[in-house]
């Protein structure tokens, strides 16, 4: 009964689509970006160790095995990572933090107003405001830059995502009817390329109450990340 119900549930989606769901938060989420240097795997936004700061994490190029796949993975100089912040709940970015590799460093621009060359909202230029940078880290050479109250990191990290992928596969294969407790983190031991930036909240004005029905009195920003390739 339980098993048939489960299959009734998963029967609504194709195996291929489900297996992608199984893999990740956003890793290889769609055909056009899968496996490219513009494939965002995850995005995090949270209050920093100093609760006057926000931390934004953008991960790209997931599922890197330890060793050579990780040491040889590099950020792409033609891919701009753009963290978008909407501070008045109109779903349009009011501020962006841009990150792009040049040479041995990751350059960060912003928080600053969005730089859109024309009327197409999908296109950006790199803003001309102050640029700050950090040397890109390796496994053994961890570089953190601090400037103007901000902190910067770019380089390989352990993939913070966790999920029991194999058990889901077992369910799909019909050899299991549910998850296990405890399950097994299939992502244990894989790496990603991470961009981490910590920003004083004072650099990000605004925020609107009444957006989140579960926290109606908390001023809320809408935040998201985009990967954009030079055309």
């Amino acid at each position, binding site marked *: 009964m339980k098993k048939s119900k489960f299959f009734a*549930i998963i029967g*609504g989606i194709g195996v291929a*689509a489900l297996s*992608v769901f199984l893999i990740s938060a*956003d890793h290889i*989420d*769609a055909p056009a*970006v899968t496996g*490219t240097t513009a494939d*965002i795997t995850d995005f*995090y*936004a*949270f*209050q920093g160790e100093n609760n006057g700061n*926000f931390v934004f994490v953008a991960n790209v190029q997931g599922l890197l095995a330890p060793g050579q796949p990780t040491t040889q993975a590099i950020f792409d100089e033609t*891919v*701009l990572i753009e963290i978008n912040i909407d501070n008045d709940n*109109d*779903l349009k970015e009011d501020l962006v933090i841009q990150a792009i590799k040049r*040479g041995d460093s990751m350059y960060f621009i912003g928080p600053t107003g969005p730089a859109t060359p024309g009327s197409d909202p*999908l*296109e*950006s*230029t*790199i803003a001309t405001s102050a*640029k700050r940078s950090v040397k890109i880290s390796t496994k053994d050479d961890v570089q*953190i830059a601090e400037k103007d109250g901000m*902190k910067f*990191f770019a380089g390989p*990290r*352990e993939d*913070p*995502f*966790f*999920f029991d992928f194999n058990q889901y596969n077992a369910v799909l294969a019909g050899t299991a009817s*549910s*998850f296990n*407790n*405890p*399950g097994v*983190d299939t992502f*244990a031991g894989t*790496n990603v390329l991470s961009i*981490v930036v*910590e920003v004083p909240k004072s650099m990000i004005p605004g925020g609107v109450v009444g*957006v*989140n029905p*579960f*926290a109606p009195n*908390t001023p809320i*920003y*809408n*935040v*998201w990340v*985009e*990967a*954009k*390739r*030079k*055309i």
Partner: protein
Amino acid sequence: MKTLKYITLFAAISTSLLLVQCKDDDDNVITQETCTDGIMNGEETEVDCGGPDCAPCGQVIDFSGTYRQEDQMGRPGINTVFGTTGFKDAFNVTVPTAMQAAFQTKFQDKLLALNADYTTNALGQDAATFTTVLSNDVLWLGKTGITTYFNGTEILTGRALSDDVIDVSLLLVFGGPDGSENPGLTSDGVPTNDVAFSSSFPYLAGPF
């Protein structure tokens, strides 16, 4: 004197704009001998580069050009769970202001395909309300207080590294109004990462 000050100021501004270290030569006010004057002068080895004062040649940093969106992400797993073959790529190149109109109905169809018995979820959202929130794929971030996808108390005020976003998603899709439906599908049994996170910048653990 005024001219000298002007030239010095100009040189300083030009230099800072291009992010190249170049010492302004106060002894020479006749030529604007800087790393940004478009002339090979001073001790430069090529135009505006090389020598003791300017950046090495071949390393002028170019930030020009236009960049076009290929991928985007707000909340975890939205496109992977609710995207369907045929519009996953389109979703990634749709700006948030256009998402609800383009995708809410598709998300609702997908939700009901995943869980035909869906009525409401543990947040009290019916299928239309739930997929309206999700189709606007932005992550809410609280300006004050605890930031978490869900920690048992706070709901959707950010996303911390340790948040079990998979279980939250499974619970909301499969768990029904009180979270008790489909118990085998509402948690993957992996509540934490395999490696501990740091409480300090950059927070993520070092690579394997």
